[in-house]
């Protein structure tokens, strides 16, 4: 038995002990009821679930009865127990009959589950599930890059994950995240930055970008980092996927997502969505809005790659040019999986890609804007706008598709943090680091910073975007090292198309539970 197996066995025993406590130790409370025997109807209100019935007498005496029954005809209570006097000395015991008319008040006590049982059970089940799941699926206990929470209508929500593809120092990059649901209250905006994973985060900069919104419109960002003022969003008319009509899932940014499952034999297999909008006004430039996030497919593959690399992961990442981010012309895992391609028909009626959208990361939903050039030759007047999305099966979760009229390009107003707090204490050092482009703030698992930004006047008139820069380092899990395999590592990172066919069956075995268990354990709060 290897050390790994022994530890599994010991931990499994601990889990079993925990489970036995769950089964054996239930938490109860006592619920007491008093009934005055005014008439025969009141006897019916005695709770028969009470194992013991107490009958209090006018002189202070007390009958304590087990196995009690009520004879309504004779107005007598029968049972086995004891009669005590006011001093609580036993007068008599055994089978007893109590005339109801001699009783001043009846008392019943029913045992019920404690209110503490529910949260304790939830904690226990979630924790046990996490224990079992992490032991059996080590790559399912994921991490993330820095996560950012901002105030929204329903409280603080996760709105951005910073530089998700920057998994090594050489891959440090900046990342723009539109804070679509941000609802600032007052003239400051608190943004909570957390490290909720087994990672080291190296954060160079986190700036807030404020973009003046046109009346009734929005400000959106494209893949190149340009900001566009647009009119109001035009709703989707129709969307067809392999599963059929999925229009209703994509008309609003409401958390109801359209997604597919990965292909059984090749994880890089593409799928198509036929998208239709109402006829746009002629001569006005349009852009497609895609609100989406990734599934856990790329994260799984990345962690599998780290597992294959084992002890060689660090030097390999140092040399990596790119891992997760699709780069045209480059053979990489990210490029093989690709982004969401936006296609329109050319003059010959053939579909061609005119833009792409997508961002690495399965946690935060992102809003992407793809400007479209719709020449009259491909847009017959009066015809609805038809587009096609080409994307990898099982790789994307779409929440909304919309069309927006482009009003013009705009520039953001950059706002650095004015204050940084850690654990409710002002952290001047962290603020100084974030304001110095030559320095980086390093965070470890569990770290939580509140970055406060001073907003412009009339803050509700602005769209906000987070510009973060840095990189992060994944901690190698002990369980992963058991899978070290240089050949498979080389295949995954150098021949990803082949690797994605080889890994399809392994991923498909996990896929049904991967999303559910991750989100179930990820957001245990």
């Amino acid at each position: 038995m290897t050390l790994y197996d022994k530890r599994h066995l010991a931990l499994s025993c601990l889990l079993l002990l925990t489970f036995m406590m769950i089964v054996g130790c239930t938490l109860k409370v006592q619920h007491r009821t008093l009934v005055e025997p005014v008439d025969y109807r009141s006897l019916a209100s005695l709770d028969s679930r009470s194992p013991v019935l107490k009958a209090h007498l006018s002189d202070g005496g007390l009958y304590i009865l087990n196995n009690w029954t009520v004879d309504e005809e004779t107005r007598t209570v029968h049972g086995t127990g004891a009669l005590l006097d006011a001093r609580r000395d036993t007068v008599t015991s055994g089978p007893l009959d109590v005339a109801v008319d001699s009783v001043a008040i009846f008392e019943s006590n029913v045992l019920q589950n404690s209110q503490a049982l529910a949260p304790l059970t939830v904690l226990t089940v979630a924790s046990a599930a996490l224990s079992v799941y992490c032991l059996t699926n080590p790559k399912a206990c994921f991490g993330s890059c820095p996560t950012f929470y901002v105030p929204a209508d329903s409280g603080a929500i996760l709105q951005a994950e910073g530089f998700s593809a920057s998994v090594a120092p050489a891959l440090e990059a900046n990342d723009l995240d539109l804070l679509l649901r941000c609802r600032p209250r007052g003239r400051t905006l608190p943004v909570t930055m957390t490290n909720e994973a087994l990672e080291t985060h190296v954060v160079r900069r986190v700036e807030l970008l404020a973009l003046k919104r046109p009346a009734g419109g929005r400000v959106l960002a494209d893949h190149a980092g340009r900001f566009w003022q647009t009119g109001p969003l035009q709703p989707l008319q129709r969307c067809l996927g392999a599963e059929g009509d999925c229009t209703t899932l994509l008309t609003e940014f409401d958390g109801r997502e359209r997604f597919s499952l990965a292909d059984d034999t090749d994880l890089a297999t593409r799928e198509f969505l036929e998208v239709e909008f109402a006829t746009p006004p002629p001569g006005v430039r349009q852009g497609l809005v895609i609100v989406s996030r990734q599934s856990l497919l790329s994260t799984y593959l990345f962690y599998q790659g780290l597992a294959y690399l084992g002890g060689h992961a660090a030097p390999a990442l140092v040399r990596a040019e790119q891992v997760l981010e699709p780069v045209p012309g480059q053979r990489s895992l990210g490029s093989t999986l690709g982004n969401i391609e936006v296609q329109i028909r050319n003059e010959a009626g053939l579909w061609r890609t005119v833009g792409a959208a997508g961002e690495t990361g399965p946690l935060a939903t992102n809003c992407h804007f793809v400007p479209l050039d719709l020449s009259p030759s491909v847009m017959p007047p009066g015809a609805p706008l038809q587009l096609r999305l080409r994307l990898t099966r099982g790789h994307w979760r779409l929440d909304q598709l919309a069309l927006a009229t482009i009003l013009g390009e705009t520039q953001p107003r950059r706002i650095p943090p004015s204050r940084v707090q850690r654990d409710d204490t002002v952290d001047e050092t962290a603020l100084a680091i974030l304001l110095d482009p030559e320095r980086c703030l390093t965070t470890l698992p569990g770290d939580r910073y509140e970055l406060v930004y001073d907003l412009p006047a009339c803050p509700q008139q602005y769209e906000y975007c987070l510009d973060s820069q840095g990189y992060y380092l994944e901690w190698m899990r002990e369980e992963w090292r058991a899978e070290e395999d240089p050949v498979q590592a080389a295949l995954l990172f150098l021949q990803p198309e082949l690797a994605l066919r080889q890994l399809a069956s392994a991923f498909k075995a996990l896929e049904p539970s991967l999303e559910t268990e991750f989100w179930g354990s990820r957001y245990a709060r």
Partner: protein
Amino acid sequence: MRVDAQQRTRSRYSAVTLALLGCGLLLGLGGCATTGAPDDWLPPVMSAASDPFGAWIHVTCSEVSWPSREGEFIAVGADSIYVLRAHTLHAIPREKVTRARLAFFDPGQKAAGWSAAGALSTLSHGLVLVISLPFWLAGGLPIANLHTKEAIALHPEKDWPELRQYARFPQGPPLNIHRLQLRSKSIEERHPPKKPII
């Protein structure tokens, strides 16, 4: 970043230490929402239904001339409540009572013990316990306190007609009973204090 063997060992010891400290904290503080009753007074919940004595009550009064009293809750009268301590019955005017706290069963340490076991189980989460252990600590203590609070009733949050159910004589002060006739729980009638689970 390469995690070498020494760092892994240190991380493992840190994880175990954290989990054990968490357990100790839960067990030590699990009853920090105390009932206030003497250790051996209150019956366990499973036998509280057949306990013939009243709840343990602590009464705070508004005037210096009416000092705080604690003892067995005997009865609620028309204008007074009755508390028995060391065979002495005290009648306290209801209008003088600003606060009262009653404990009617011993909640024990099951909730704290369960939370401690849960905290220990996070050892199986590997380094994820830096996330899951705080949930047990942050959740386990309030849960243990919640269970303790279920054994407690408070006045003025509850009025005296509702609280009378916890008195030795919920029907009111018995007629023709001299106060000197009443006695407190004997040693034999008291319940042994709960031993810690671990």
